[in-house]
């Protein structure tokens, strides 16, 4: 009687241990089940500032290097700017409003969620392009004040895409 009880307890312990091991290592055994990130094509622009593979592996190196040049030495207009990333990669919702690049499923966030890397950039930096920037107001191309006001009023009035077309055709 005593012996059989011991065997039962022993069996229970072993099976519980096995179950615990299986549960804790489930991530390892079923890793293939994690969904691949969906990489949304850029909203605008035909060519990224560098090769796709390089951008995937080293975008932070490029950004970090240029960030120091810009903040400390005042170097402007170099190619690897975060504003530039957001400018091309921020998608637009149906209403024409820009969607944050760090929103769920968006360009930055989809990869970062997959790689389990937190993005810190956008707690300070803008995650959507500035309104005026959406119609091509880049740092190297300052527009006169009246022109900015004209374009801004166009943008505010109705649909963004139609107005963008209008802006580019009239200029």
């Amino acid at each position, binding site marked *: 009687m005593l012996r059989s009880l011991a065997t039962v307890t022993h069996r229970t312990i072993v099976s519980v241990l096995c179950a615990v091991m299986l549960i804790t290592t489930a991530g390892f055994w079923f890793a293939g089940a994690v969904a691949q990130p969906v990489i949304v094509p850029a909203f605008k622009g035909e060519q990224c500032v560098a090769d796709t593979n390089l951008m995937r592996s080293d975008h932070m190196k490029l950004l970090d290097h240029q*960030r120091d*040049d810009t*903040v*400390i*030495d*005042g*170097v*402007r*207009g170099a190619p690897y700017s975060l*504003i530039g990333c*957001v400018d091309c990669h921020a998608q637009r919702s149906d209403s024409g409003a820009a969607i944050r690049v760090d929103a769920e499923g968006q360009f930055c966030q989809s990869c970062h969620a997959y790689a389990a890397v937190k993005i810190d950039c956008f*707690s*300070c*930096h*803008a995650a959507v*392009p*500035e309104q005026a*920037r959406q119609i091509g107001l880049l*740092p*190297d191309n*300052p527009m006169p004040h009246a022109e900015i006001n004209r374009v801004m009023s166009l943008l505010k009035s109705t649909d963004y895409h139609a107005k963008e077309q209008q802006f580019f055709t009239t200029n």
Partner: protein
Amino acid sequence: MQKNNSSSPQTDKSLLARRRFLRNLGLLGATAVSSFTLLEVKAREQKANTTGAVTAEKRWGLLIDTSKCSSGCDACVRGCNEEHGIENEGNDATRAQWIRKIDLKDKLTGSESSVPVMCQHCDSAPCVDVCPTGASFKRADGIVLVNKHTCIGCRYCMMACPYKARSFIHETLTNQKPAAPRGKGTVESCTLCVHRVDRSEDLQPACAVACTDEAHSAILFGDLNDPQSKLATKMKEIGASQVRADLQLNTGVRYHGL
């Protein structure tokens, strides 16, 4: 001892040789050091030429004509807030202020004046001295900035600043402007609209533009190093002083009529 000091022709010669050797060594070292310094300066200049880095050739500053500034007008503050996306976030005690409008009254004469006070962009800035991480720094062209990537939010600089020019961000921010990244846990202050100035010298800081739009034109931006600049000629013409000149900080922001 005396025996050692007594000079024989032999020791004289070797002493002389040693002296000559040491002198030559010193000369060689001095030449090497000076040529290295020269090379380094030249390399830095070349780097600035090729990369567009700012240099000490210019020193940006502001001239504030208090006789043109009117009490009750806060156009410069609004212009600054709009440019940098500073909204009425947080509460009154902790709200970020890059420019404060201050009304002054001389008790003896009763004369009143109103002045905007922002970061004075000191040449020898106390905020830069005390920063433990090097985040508070002065650019080669004299603009004093916070590198928020290295700022740990200790607020030593806020304690050190005699002009109360810096603010700490207490709350999580949203809707920042692309040209003005701002975030919780870091210190910030007037950047002299560095993003505009770097684009073109003709793009004056937002406060100066707002003041001109209000038809006051009390704020003038320009190069303090260039005696021909509009700023320098105006300063020479009407005269300007520093706030707390006794601290000998050589401020980049100067006031007329204080």
